[in-house]
């Protein structure tokens, strides 16, 4: 019913909508249009859900704050297999390669959690970068 009204409105501007064949054409296009709209709405709903979940989690900011203050580190307890996996922010440059320089960690988490930044980030060559941690000789 809505579609019929829409067609009447549009037909003031173009004559081809009054054509029965053309309305058949519009059916198909319309069908996909609706499907895409549903997809777009789904995506919008996803973003809205994400936003509301963030808001909900935000309420536990105080708890996180207390925990970090107590523990002294913000590193996530994702993997306790090796020290550089547990505290990547504080492990020394060679930690990831303790076994062998080019060996990827046997632990799959090692694939996700990269070696400390000095190895691959700025200053990796040993020259002082802007944010290079200082090391005295």
């Amino acid at each position: 019913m809505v579609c019929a009204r829409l067609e009447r409105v549009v037909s003031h501007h173009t004559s081809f909508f009054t054509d029965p064949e053309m309305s058949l054409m519009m059916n198909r296009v319309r069908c996909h249009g609706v499907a895409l709209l549903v997809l777009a709405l789904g995506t919008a709903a996803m973003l809205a859900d994400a936003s509301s979940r963030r808001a909900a989690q935000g309420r536990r900011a105080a708890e996180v704050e207390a925990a970090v203050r107590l523990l002294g580190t913000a590193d996530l307890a994702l993997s306790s297999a090796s020290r550089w996996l547990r505290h990547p922010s504080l492990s020394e440059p060679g930690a990831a390669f303790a076994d062998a320089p080019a060996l990827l960690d046997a632990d799959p988490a090692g694939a996700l959690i990269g070696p400390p930044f000095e190895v691959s980030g700025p200053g990796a060559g040993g020259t002082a970068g802007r944010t290079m941690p200082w090391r005295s000789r």
Partner: protein
Amino acid sequence: MRRHLALARFALGSGGRRAGRTLTLTLALALVTAAFSAVLFLTEALRREYRLGVGLLPDLTVQRLVAGRPGLIAEAHARAIAAIRGVTRVEPRVWGYYFVPALAGNFTVVGADFAGPSAGVNPGVVLGEGRLPGRGATGEAVLGEALAGFLGLSVGDAIELPVGNGSQRFEVVGLFRSSVALWSADVLLLSLEDARRFLQVPEGEATDLAVRLSTPDEATVAAGKIAELVPGARIVDRQLLDRTYDLTFDTRGGLMGAMLLPALAAFLVLAWDRLTGVGPGERREIGVLRAVGWKTSEILEARLWENLLIGAYGAGLGLLGAYGYVFLLGAPGLREVLMGWSSLYPAFDLAPAVTAGQVLVVGTLVVVPFVTLSLVPAWHATTRDPHGLLRGTT
């Protein structure tokens, strides 16, 4: 406008006539998008969690490297550092790891000064059960949820752990809340003295020094001075800590994403194969269109509509699927890979860090190459002799 609509409608018809191909490609595209997006969503969410706590970290953390590995640092240095201009407080910290063969892994031991800096922490906020160790008390411990579960302990239980030639006994007085499990899952929280004894860190030494400054801008200058004061010092400033997880997940572990590259490549090969083999039916169709007077640009536009639609459906379904997989189902499979071989899994309920920008980027990364790829063989077919295409000889 009418032209484009007519071409779009023709494209829909084409897609319908090749329903098998259309469906296969849409599904493959959705799968690849979902896999890639799932990794992205998970790592971004974790990065966000890390960020929640990073603001509270000390401005500078001083370690001492011995033979390239972190050794212990003398507390005496703390006094010298405290004298530097701009330094408001220096706190020697005692923490480390305790290896458990049964776990085939470590748990983290943290010593907290309940008379000092940790005194201000409200136990009710961070604990799910029990209380923090009392001031001056010994043999009291707070456990992380997963650790307690692994050891089979609850508040009131006691455990004896081997240390050196002897052992040390602890009574569980509290358990961390599950909402902070991501940070505390594997933690054994002790008083400073207990931690020292347990980790065998002698008096006068510490694991590292936490330095707080009056303003963060002092960091460079202060760090330089500390480097002069402490031989073998390694100084990590907060900016770096802040970026750790950025680099962590971006480098190697965009390796997870990199592992998906073969999948992506496979899909592209599939796409290329199907599109170039631009099956005989499709080539014939292009031949017909050329023959009846369609311009190359018009044929390509119809193709574009068809593949844009496939791309949109594939990417859309993939993104929604990935979101559901990670945040509604908890990423089964992927999460275990993330946790590694460790048996202490923090139970976590991640907040999505998904933004419209990310969605747009993923969508573009998936749709644009696919659509571009699909146009090439079509364009190639339009350059062939239409007669040959009609007969199937070209």
